[in-house]
């Protein structure tokens, strides 16, 4: 049980003060910059005319130039640039975590860190009880009982409209409204595309790595909770131990994203283990961040090698 600080205390409190300083360059040996073609907007990629141009490039007087800052990707004769900082460009099958912004007629508008708000149609959610039927006018009127403005959901991209807006669906028991947990926002390009984005970490918490850069950390559900699907949001109090694990994971995520490390379950777990020797609130200090991330990078490099 936490003790709230007494308001009467006039004793000294430790205050942490920092002055701005130049950030040190990370050790080159671990950055694996060899073989990666990094460009800034306006950089000429190639003058060879035999290539097709993809996203992030444009033709400037016979020269193929980059229009965003990122890494050049070449697939056979196609050249495109994958930007580092970008809005989420959705593909069919991506898992996203989003927040409801509007409740409209027969659909919800969901904010997913993309250029346009995504759309979640009423026909694309599971009805309570799992029935399969046509949505009636009554279902339309009770939309707000299920999802309101401000709710967080996990969903999958079903299709992409011609203008780029995403159409989402929650037609599986593992998608739906999210309950108690912590949301961390990182850049979408840092989330690795994997077979599955739902992980139960061994340190005692679970994570949903949304492709749109929104990462959701929550306590691992018990056995019966999983059967309820997206309807039951457990309001049982979360234990202190779980809270500490989740807080530590959140700080680790922020550390990894500050150093632009690719996020997936293994990197997150290594970072967590590397941070165990520090206090949770110390992880956010720049020098501690650097140390933890370097250790994580080393472990990842060893594992691959």
């Amino acid at each position, binding site marked *: 049980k936490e003790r709230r600080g007494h308001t009467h205390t006039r004793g000294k409190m430790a205050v942490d003060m920092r002055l701005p300083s130049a950030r040190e360059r990370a050790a080159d040996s671990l950055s694996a910059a060899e073989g990666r073609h990094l460009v800034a907007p306006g950089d000429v990629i190639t003058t060879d005319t035999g290539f*097709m141009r993809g996203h992030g490039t444009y033709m400037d007087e016979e020269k193929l130039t980059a229009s965003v800052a990122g890494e050049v990707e070449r697939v056979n004769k196609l050249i495109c640039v994958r930007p580092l900082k970008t809005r989420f460009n959705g*593909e069919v099958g991506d898992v996203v975590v989003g927040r409801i912004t509007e409740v409209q007629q027969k659909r919800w508008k969901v904010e997913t860190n993309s250029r346009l708000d995504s759309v979640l149609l009423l026909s694309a959610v599971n009805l309570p009880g799992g029935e399969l039927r046509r949505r009636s006018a009554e279902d339309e009127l009770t939309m707000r009982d299920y999802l309101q403005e401000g709710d967080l959901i996990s969903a999958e991209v079903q299709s992409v409209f011609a203008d780029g807006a995403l159409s989402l669906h929650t037609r599986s028991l593992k998608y739906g409204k999210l309950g108690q947990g912590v949301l961390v926002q990182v850049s979408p390009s840092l989330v690795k595309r994997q077979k599955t984005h739902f992980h139960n970490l061994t340190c005692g918490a679970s994570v949903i790595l949304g492709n749109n850069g929104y990462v959701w950390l929550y306590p691992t559900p018990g056995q019966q909770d999983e059967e309820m699907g997206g309807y039951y949001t457990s309001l049982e109090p979360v234990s202190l131990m779980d809270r500490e694990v989740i807080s530590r994971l959140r700080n680790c995520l922020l550390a990894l994203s500050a150093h632009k490390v690719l996020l997936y379950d293994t990197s997150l777990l290594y970072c967590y283990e590397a941070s165990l020797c520090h206090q949770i609130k110390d992880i956010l200090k720049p020098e501690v961040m650097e140390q933890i991330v370097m250790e994580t990078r080393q472990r990842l490099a060893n594992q691959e090698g």
Partner: protein
Amino acid sequence: MIQLLKKGIGVHHSGILPILKEVIEMLFTRGLVKVLFATETFAMGVNMPARTVVFDSIRKHDGTGFRDLLPGEYIQMAGRAGRRGLDTTGTVIILCKAGVHEMSDLHKMMLGKPTVLQSQFRLTYTMILNLLRVEALRVTDMMKRSFSECHCRRDAQSHEKRIAQLKKMLSSLPPIDTEGQLADLVTYYHTVRELTLTRGTLQKATLESVNGVKALSVGRVVVINNSQHTNALGVILQVSSDSANRTFTALVLCEKDGEGTLKPDAAPTPPKSPQLLCSTALFIPEGPCGHTVQKIRAEDVTGITVKTLRVAPDRIIDNFNKRQMPRFKLDPPGQAISTTTQELLRLAEANPDGVATLDPVNDLQLKGVEVVEASMRLRILQESLGQFTCVHSPRFSEEFSRLQERMVLQEELDRLQFLVSDQSLSLLPEYHQRVEVLKSLQYVDAGGAVQLKGRVACELSSHELLLTELLFEGALSSLPPEESAALLSCLVFTQKTQVTPEINASLQEGVQRVLGVAKRIAELQRECGLSESVEDYVGQYKFGLTEVVYCWARGMPFSEIATLTDVQEGIVVRCIQRLDEVLKDVRNAARIVGDSVLYSKMEQASTAIKRDIVFTASLYTH
């Protein structure tokens, strides 16, 4: 066509322009066309009643060969005769141009069984990629639900119940004691099992071979091993003529009081010690020698000896059967039987350790790989039997029987679990091979996540590999729209033509490029284990319509197009319509990739071919 229609005669087949086909159909419905010459597809249509149906022939070409009409096809076509409300009966006439047809053929065609439903489930790359994109589904789940797996799934529930039962039974059995001398009990069990199986295969091979069958003729002395006799000598009296389950009638040596009594076969075989398994010591009756005449199966014959005897089989069999009757039970055995028995006994006593048997490899000339390997393996196993220590343990037999019980249950459990699992899907090996192809072409990364190339391939509905490879090689974006349209016509045109199209140099180059890519893909597929041959794969892309499409895209009127090739007009129209869909797919793919140049080129090509008579709206929708 107009001349014919004026006279009331119509023609309807796939080579006619679609809009003309609709005109003829409408005229027929109104009754203005009195006689219509049509193909099978007309029979599928609705609202086309006819008074009489005349069959020109009862054979047809179905793409792979000439055959008779199936009952279903015949009924479909003949059933069109007779207009509801106007005729009381419909008439079906079959012309006999080359002589009257056989009664049996007609009977089969008109009254035969309908075609059995067969699953046409095919694993395509598009399907696999689309399913790999979605997290929630696995491709094997989809395959499990196909009709081709229906018969396996039906039993799935009963298998699950049995598995639960077996698991309970296994857990209730006492554990096996493997202390001290019994340490190699399990290995012994497996060795014995392999020994019996190898012996069985060798025997089977011997008895199925021509030389083996010849050797097992009347009068041959054989060694019998079954539940009643152990290494007993017998002589063959009769060979059944059924080649599938050959049975032999033989005269076998046994104990005197064992004559004619048949011990129940159900007694479980006691564990055989190594000496018994390897020994070929012949059975010699301890008491007075007796004999029985029995039917034995091929599996009971463990050795064909080199000796033959002269026997009078009929007399022996008759005599024995007579003495089976209660009235003659006490009669002494006949002359023929006693001489034969005496000879067998003398043979057994002369060679107590076993008579020389015909060796499958050397004597019966069975040189097959399996036979030679099996006999070598048999020898190795027999030698290894002597080194087991568990046989010397005092509790050997009871432990062995317990182990046997447990092993039998375990094997059944394993078998059922295999059937219920994913491993028993018949298309599973093909699925793995296709995923191999996708991985090596980098559509899917090593972990199973779909890459950019794979996402592009998902958009294409047919020939996804070829189109994606062409796209990423820049073959389509460097050509002007008309030429790329002409090149892509190879994906929709599937017929052979006699006229080779005359095309310009860049198109020729394009054609060679397409063929090169197709060859590469086909060879990769072969490497990964798929059974389609390289020539078949490359040969499915036919370039007969390239010139036609090129000229059409550049604005030539349709009447001139028709003179350029010998392909029928209706087929040309259909190909161009399907080509438009392919161009739409490539346009979507270009949007995903981000190549705006290709996007606009495909749009231009689409507008260039979408004109005039090829794309006129159907008359039914006016």
